[in-house]
């Protein structure tokens, strides 16, 4: 019975409304990944998984530190309901006036200067989760260049530029 479960490549036209794909390649043995997975795709997956676990771990740990009071927040937790109904501009202004007391409201990367507070410490995990995609594209760039896959190398560079611009805080909204 095992022989009948041996993987074989299939021309999808045999299954109704589908057409044939690219030229066939040798089948992958049972239980193994398809052989045609590009090297850069597997590398991307590895970096993505590492970044995801790291970011989530940091986020959960910092949230526990925050909510337990181990690291005191800038905004007292019991005052949060006073602020979360405001639009973001008024929220930042009110929070800065009443609790943070910085020269400017905390937009962009200014939260880094408030990391001694438990609530702002949570930004670290969120930023790790948001930055992992940039690292993934930078990580696969050498592989793409080595394979002389210049079109995708350019796409990867452009994607990094877009994400880096978004992350830099250069691109700001006009506000309400």
């Amino acid at each position: 019975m095992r022989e009948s479960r041996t993987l074989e490549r299939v021309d999808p036209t045999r299954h109704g409304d589908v057409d044939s794909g690219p030229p066939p390649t040798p089948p992958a043995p049972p239980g193994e990944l398809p052989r045609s997975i590009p090297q850069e795709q597997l590398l991307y997956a590895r970096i993505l998984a590492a970044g995801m676990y790291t970011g989530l771990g940091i986020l959960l740990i910092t949230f526990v530190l925050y909510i337990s009071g181990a690291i005191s927040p800038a905004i007292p937790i019991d005052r949060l309901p006073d602020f979360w109904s405001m639009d973001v501009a008024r929220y930042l202004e009110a929070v800065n006036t009443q609790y943070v007391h910085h020269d400017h409201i905390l937009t962009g990367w200014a939260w880094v200067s408030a990391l001694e507070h438990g609530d702002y410490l949570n930004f670290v995990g969120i930023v790790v989760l948001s930055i992992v995609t940039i690292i993934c594209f930078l990580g696969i760039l050498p592989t793409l260049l080595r394979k002389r896959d210049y079109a995708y190398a350019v796409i990867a560079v452009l994607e990094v530029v877009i994400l880096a611009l978004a992350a830099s805080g250069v691109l700001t909204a006009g506000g309400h």
Partner: protein
Amino acid sequence: MVVLLFLALIEPTAAWAAQEGPLADAGAVGSADATATAWWFWPAVLFGMTFLMGILAAVGGVGGGVLFVPIVSGFCPFHLDFVRCTGLLVALCGALAAGPGFLRMNLASLRLAMPVALIASACAVAGAMVGLALPTNVVQTALGVAILGIVGLMIRARKSAFPAVRAADRLSQVLRIHGVYMEASLDREIDWKIHRTLTGLLLFIGIGFMAGMFGLGAGWANVPVLNLVMGVPLKVSVATSKFLLSITDTSAAWVYLNEGCVIPMMVVPSLVGIMLGSFIGVRILRVAKPGFVRWMVIGLLLFSGGKAITKGLGLPFII
């Protein structure tokens, strides 16, 4: 909804105050409504709601983001600015969690995702900037219209497990967008290729823009375009769409992060709630009737879409 109704019974002041919260009480620091409840009340509600959303999303085959923004912005006191950012982070985390597995199984295709993501993420940044610049009531109303449009798409759009692609188009040949994946139901590997690549890429301009503007995960649009327009097999479409969100939503999330739209007390309960819900939902999927759940999700979206429109226009709603 169940949680909200339950809360309305045990603490009516808080529940009803929430209905008008985001727009009516925007500047009410220390208002009676805001201080009437304990600080943990709404984060706990958020956790309960996202837990249910996680179950519904997993069983109903939709992303959590598309449920999160209209429901939470419609029925909780949190301002739409924070809800959209949290919605993007919820969708982003779901995509980050699923992405590595899909890539390793070759269900998600990096070659297919990269050109699409380049367009969608650039437009998501633009959408986020526009969404944050527009008045809240305009965005809320537009969100309601978009949600009703999504409902229409969910009802009308068909899916094709193996779309017919007579010949790969020139652009996809140049970019070498094709692949092979293991189809477990057939116990065979399936080759796939795509067509109408340019049309598909152009459609992602609008998809990316809407994802950024409303903070929605864009799986509801990614899958039909990949599957029905570009001819990608359904499983590859779903997996690539999920992976794609990790890029599109990242770009939009950065704009919201830099504008300061993050309240950790909203983000973490939502992430944990939706992840636990998805975990349970996958198990319920084995015994649930997906057709019934799908219609339940459609009903929920109709309800929250209607709520968003009336809230944006300042009109009364059922609740």
